[in-house]
């Protein structure tokens, strides 16, 4: 049985402190260990590795200019740095400094820096209003009140079995990897809140459980933004939008995405039937 004490440090450690195990023959061994010590934890491990090595590899690959042009597309030049930022392995400052070094003029990094700025913005908002982590910052602008939204996520959403092919693909990716393109997160959040009329808090809680880059400010306030409780209008999308940005990556056929296959006008009519006039 593995002795968790570090013999070299026995003389320094108080008796009750245990050192975590650090000798693993491979990743599978580490995963088995975590499963053994945390048998309550749900799901599977992600193929995305933690730690500074991968973080620095990704940091070296960032292309702020290409990011600016392609960031909304499924296969755009997104950095995938967010899990490492959320764990403090990299700071926004360090990423910014690296991005600027890769640009001939700083303005070429505008879209990239704005995206870092969004993260900083969310942190500052929540620092000033910690209650907004789980309470509506404002009323819904959908014509509905909180009482019209269900409290819990149905299992078909959680398991990616909604029958809406693109949404199910995104949910599977979330469940399997703990990472989702930001645009896909907006689609899923909008589907949950507006197409299925479920409280944003249920969706936010679900994302926090599984996202490797779980950050309560970015995540929860983004859900509020989609829901319209922290924005001037609800965010909705349609199949045409998914085709434009994720066609070729997920099933975007009309027959397999029927609830999404409508114009924005038709969706607004369907989803926000009791629209109240905003003050």
């Amino acid at each position: 049985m593995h002795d968790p004490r570090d013999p070299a440090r026995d003389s320094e450690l108080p008796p009750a402190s245990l050192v975590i195990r650090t000798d693993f023959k491979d990743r599978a061994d580490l995963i088995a260990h975590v499963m053994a010590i945390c048998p309550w934890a749900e799901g599977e491990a992600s193929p995305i590795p933690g730690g500074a090595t991968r973080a620095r590899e990704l940091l070296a690959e960032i292309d702020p200019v290409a990011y600016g042009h392609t960031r909304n597309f499924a296969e755009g030049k997104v950095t995938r740095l967010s899990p490492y930022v959320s764990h403090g392995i990299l700071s926004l400052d360090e990423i910014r400094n690296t991005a600027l070094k890769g640009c001939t003029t700083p303005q070429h990094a505008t879209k990239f820096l704005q995206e870092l700025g969004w993260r900083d913005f969310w942190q500052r908002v929540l620092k000033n209003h910690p209650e907004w982590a789980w309470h509506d910052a404002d009323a819904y602008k959908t014509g509905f009140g909180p009482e019209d939204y269900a409290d819990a996520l149905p299992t078909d959403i959680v398991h990616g079995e909604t029958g809406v092919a693109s949404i199910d693909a995104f949910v599977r990716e979330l469940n399997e990897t703990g990472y989702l393109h930001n645009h896909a997160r907006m689609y899923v959040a909008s589907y949950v809140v507006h197409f299925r009329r479920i409280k944003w808090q249920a969706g936010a809680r679900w994302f926090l459980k599984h996202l490797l880059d779980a950050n309560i400010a970015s995540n929860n306030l983004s859900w509020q933004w989609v829901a319209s409780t922290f924005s001037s209008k609800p965010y909705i999308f349609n199949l045409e939008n998914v085709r434009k940005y994720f066609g070729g990556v997920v099933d975007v056929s009309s027959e397999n995405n029927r609830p999404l296959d409508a114009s924005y006008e038709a969706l607004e009519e369907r989803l926000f039937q009791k629209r109240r006039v905003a003050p």
Partner: protein
Amino acid sequence: MSDTLVWLHPEALRCHHPAALEAPPQTTLVFVWDEELFREMDMSLKRLVFLYESVLSIVTSLSQDSTEARPFLALQGRTVDVLAERQPREILIPDTINPVILARAKALSTRFSVKMVADHPFADVPADRDWRKFFDYWKHAEKSCFFENGTPSLVK
């Protein structure tokens, strides 16, 4: 008894965080594998594995870098109990907005001197402004965030 400790919590896993840099040399940096904390944060297995790998990465890099002066301990237990056992005079904690981590910081502050230490800033914006719209924030942030370290400099 140790004078100063730095608690590297799950959102601050690097030995060159300003909290660690501010601490006196030879200050012990401590990470705590605190299952109670992780259950409160409702972490899935994938999050726990990522976290464990990230901590292991620190242990591995320190074993390869003999120039790092600060000892790093990755311990297992309840955060408050583990840190309290070392009877620090002061605990430096990387600042966070995570309410679960903040609750632990608050519990520690009832027994020890606790200082929350901010990370290197992304931009120089008024800390006390009540930001509601991103582009209001951005009008301020863009004055500094296009410069290395967020600091406009006249020196090229």
